[in-house]
């Protein structure tokens, strides 16, 4: 019976008619239409500038002409430029000041505010609210805090008969001042990421830990922290990428001073490319920054992945 059916023309037809729907995962070129808009903006606004920037970095270029090919000339100039080397160090110093602090304070706030009370909800909103301000407002606020003699900090120190540290003008403290303003500005996102991670931890694990005699510290160390490890890495990577691009705060609070000590790479790029119109050199500095961020993010990712989390 089966054989007879298989050989009959109707059966062949039936099988033949079904083939077009058989492989629903076969490529359909019209699907391209759905990604086309994204692809267009990705290419024109991201890929093209990236490649053009690379091309520029190998040329002596200003705004009027793209000039001559100079090979690695721009990179050699950067290597000998003390201000650029200083700006790299400044940027690393800034990242080192802000990223661990943001992660730790963000985690601390999230741990404190991860409860269903009205106060916690109000405080969450309050701590996040600084994130919606523009950099101009943020620096304005902190300039008011830091201004010598009349600023908030000076006033408070004055009550105790002390002199406030000169966060904007002291060469040793200027970057710390910028870092404080940045942490205040950016703390919302890490806190929210940690909060959402904490809320994903199943409650019954905590109940099991309570039955297992774990005290608060043991619960934090053995249950909570391992459960949000991935979020911790995410926060670190996001913040490294963000803080490497320090510009607005430094430009508006100190103009890179005193003595270039708070000049980050992006400010150097801005100075070089758009104030001195040395586009080739600026492009080369941009590529260095691009590689630095890439390495930092990749290293972080690889280090944490190789430790293996097979939960």
């Amino acid at each position, binding site marked *: 019976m089966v054989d007879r059916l298989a050989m009959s023309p109707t059966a062949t037809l039936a099988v033949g008619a079904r083939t077009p729907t058989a492989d629903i995962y076969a490529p359909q070129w019209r699907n391209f239409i759905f990604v086309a808009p994204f692809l267009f903006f990705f290419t024109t606004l991201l890929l093209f500038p990236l490649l053009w920037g690379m091309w520029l970095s190998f040329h002596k270029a200003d705004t009027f002409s793209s000039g001559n090919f100079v090979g690695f000339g721009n990179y050699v100039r950067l290597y000998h430029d003390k201000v650029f080397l200083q700006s790299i160090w400044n940027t690393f110093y800034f990242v080192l000041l802000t990223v661990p602090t943001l992660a730790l304070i963000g985690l601390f706030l999230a741990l404190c505010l991860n409860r269903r009370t009205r106060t916690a909800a109000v405080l969450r909103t309050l701590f996040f609210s600084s994130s919606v301000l523009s950099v101009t407002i943020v620096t304005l606020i902190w300039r008011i805090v830091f201004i010598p003699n009349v600023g908030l900090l000076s006033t408070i120190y004055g009550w105790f008969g002390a002199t406030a540290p000169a966060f904007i003008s002291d060469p040793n403290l200027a970057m710390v001042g910028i870092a404080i303003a940045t942490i205040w500005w950016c703390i919302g996102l890490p806190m929210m990421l940690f909060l959402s991670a904490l809320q994903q931890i*199943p409650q*019954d*694990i905590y*109940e*099991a*830990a*309570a*039955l*297992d*005699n*774990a*005290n608060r510290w*043991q619960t934090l160390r*053995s*249950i909570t922290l*391992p*459960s949000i*490890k991935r979020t911790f890495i995410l926060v670190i990577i996001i913040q490294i990428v963000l803080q490497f691009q320090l510009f607005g705060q430094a430009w508006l609070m100190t103009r890179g001073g005193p003595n270039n000590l708070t000049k980050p790479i992006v400010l150097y790029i801005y100075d070089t490319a758009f104030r001195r119109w040395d586009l080739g050199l600026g492009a080369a500095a941009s590529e260095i920054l691009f590689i630095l961020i890439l390495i930092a993010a990749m290293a972080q990712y690889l280090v944490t992945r190789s430790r293996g*989390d*097979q*939960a």
Partner: protein
Amino acid sequence: MTADIEIRNVSKQFGAMTVLDHLSLSIRAREFIVFLGPSGCGKSTLLRMIAGLEAVDSGEIAINNERIDHLPPGKRGIAMVFQSYALYPHMTVRDNMAFGLANIGVPGKVIEARINEAARILEMPHLLDRKPGQLSGGQRQRVAIGRAIVKEPKAFLFDEPLSNLDAALRTRTRIELAQLHQRLQSTMIFVTHDQVEAMTLADRIVVMNNRKIDQIGTPMEIYERPATKFVAGFVGAPAMNFVDATLNKSGENATARFADGISVQTEIASSQLTDGKYTFGIRSEDVRIVAAGQGNADGVVDVLERLGERTLIYARLGDGQQIVGSDAGNSRVAVGDRIGLAFDGQKSHLFNETGRAWHAREA
């Protein structure tokens, strides 16, 4: 180690809603107790109150005559197996089992020995270095039980631990749990809504309904002499047949008369029955299938369920009420047949309007 547990007058409210209403219960040492009831009857809440995961609003709980309701969960000397297992996902099986012991400062060698012993009992030494994510549902279940065993608790609490397993594994784990109880001789409290689990595992079943305990008894007491209509309907599959009836109490034993004139002579003493409306109840296996006109009532077969060893027959009486009867596995009855139904008066039950039950005199 084992313990008797005393629950005295315990109540629990969530906001305005009362979940448990003045509940009392004594659990003897080494007993396997099952809390059985439908969702929302408060059985899990009661278990969590014993564990210390829910506060006791009023009343007290004592283990070995020591009040424990004010103690934190870890200090009560009990271990719990959760429905979701609640294993620590980032720890190996070994670390999962060691965690509770390390927290109270048990020496490493003792921990190691207990883990190895538990792993041997549960046949899982090969799983010790894996993480929960690498285990199947059944294996996780074993680890959760192992984590409880190593603590050598006074009592084990199980919160619907079999409900996430497939049918075959559930049956096997049920048997293993029974063996584990015999081996450890510990007090065990097991929460389930599955009456088969309750019947097969329990020394005594606590049937809970609507914030209260309806009945406490051995599985066969619960099955054969249910205290209320709820218990009669909840325990047993298919559910007990219920038919509205009026009583004739002129004889020594009451006679139940149904709406269409059918009557059944019960063996329930008339003297103990008060006036009022009653429901007649009988289990399907106590309704025999006979030729039409030969039994207490005649009916037409609606549905047949062939279970292999017996056949369930859903018959419709003249007044439209459905009665489930039981026939041999190879029953010749077919849908649409007119059959007779013979009720076993010795096994019939009567329930008054409040749900209270009366049964035949005990033999």
